[in-house]
């Protein structure tokens, strides 16, 4: 109990500080810490699946993305790193938002308790589902079409980022292993272990907390590690290998949806006997696709004009 209160104070304090500080790097580091603290909140609430994904994303992809974005701003528009003030006339806005939040809080706390809780009805049907972990059952069986669309959102996201970076120049020679022997050794140990853990989590997802999203986020973390340390040369966006891997999850999921329509007469209703195999196969492909998409977000676009100005110096 005391732990919960202390945790909430910590998370609230982190949020307050990271949103009001003037130092962008401090905000980035605080945001990563915020994500990790939030993972402890999920643990205390009992949402271990969410905690897994939050930790994998918070420690792996999100922080790296922000660090990257900050660095690119530093190169392209250094003035963006300064003058990050509040709008002076906007002091009234936080007050309004506070009042709004207060009302929302009042409503949230006094709202009638859930009239018809879903949980018992879900748990009742889980034994018949294709997975015994209730969260995986919801994600890939009961509401699988939702998940299908979410993968679609991810693919759309990476497509949009590619469109923004169209014509990105060849990636500069990355630092190599001999440049950084200590880091190289760590990567050689960590990456295989991470891949193993990701496979374990994908498989475990059918029974216990774990699954495609968590394993994909973890694998993306390993991808970021390899990209940042120069072990993995980024593919060009038009590379057929990269495009295949990115689209594979959506494609296989959609194909499974079509197949079930023909075989069972309903979208994503798996055959009674082999549901588990279907879910595991879909999850395996999803894991790889999600990991590729998340890691691809991290791939840097070298800023050509900046390098020219560096030379003039």
């Amino acid at each position, binding site marked *: 109990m005391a732990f919960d209160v202390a945790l909430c104070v910590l998370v609230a304090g982190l949020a307050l500080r990271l949103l009001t500080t003037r130092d962008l790097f401090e905000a980035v*580091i605080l945001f990563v810490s915020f994500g990790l603290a939030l993972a402890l909140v999920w*643990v205390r609430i009992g949402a271990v699946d969410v905690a897994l994904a939050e930790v994998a994303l918070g*420690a*792996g992809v999100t922080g790296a993305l922000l660090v990257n974005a900050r660095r690119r701003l530093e190169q392209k528009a250094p003035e963006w790193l300064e003058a990050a003030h509040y709008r002076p006339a906007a002091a009234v806005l936080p007050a309004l938002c506070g009042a709004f939040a207060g009302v929302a809080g009042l409503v949230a706390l006094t709202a009638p308790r859930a009239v018809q809780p879903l949980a018992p009805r879900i748990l009742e049907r889980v034994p018949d589902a294709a997975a015994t972990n209730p969260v995986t059952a919801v994600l890939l069986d009961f509401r699988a079409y939702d998940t299908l669309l979410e993968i679609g959102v991810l693919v759309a996201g990476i497509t949009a980022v590619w469109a923004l970076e169209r014509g990105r120049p060849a990636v500069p*020679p990355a630092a190599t292993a001999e*440049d*950084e022997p200590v880091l190289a050794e760590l990567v050689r140990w960590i990456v295989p272990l991470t891949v193993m853990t990701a496979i374990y989590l994908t498989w475990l997802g059918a029974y216990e907390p774990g699954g495609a999203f968590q394993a994909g986020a973890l694998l993306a*973390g390993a991808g970021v590690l390899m990209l940042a340390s120069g072990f993995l040369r980024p593919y060009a966006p038009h590379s057929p290998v990269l495009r295949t891997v990115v689209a594979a999850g959506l494609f296989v999921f959609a194909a499974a949806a079509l197949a079930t329509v023909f075989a069972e007469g309903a979208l994503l209703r798996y055959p009674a006997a082999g549901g588990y195999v279907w879910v595991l196969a879909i999850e395996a492909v999803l894991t790889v696709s999600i990991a590729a998409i998340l890691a691809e977000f991290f791939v840097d676009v070298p800023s050509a004009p900046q390098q020219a100005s560096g030379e003039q110096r």
Partner: protein
Amino acid sequence: MSMALHGFALFLLLNVTAGLVRIARGPTAPDRMLAAQLFGTTGVAILLVLAEALDVRALRDVALVFALLAAVLAVAFVKRGRVSDHARRNRA
């Protein structure tokens, strides 16, 4: 024993909270990075202790994921700058 473990988890959490002051104070980026790393180590400890105290096995997997990815942020922070330095050096 459960009581002691819960108390220990609370102690670690307060410890982390105090350590985070270093992120706010800085003064340099490496200082802030360091404080975040410290959060990682203590976070792993908290998760392991809670796994035992609450008897939830899966929390050890969360701690494992935490430990596996502990280096990513620092590597992204240090390395990407180095790559551009490297490129610039080669061009010069």
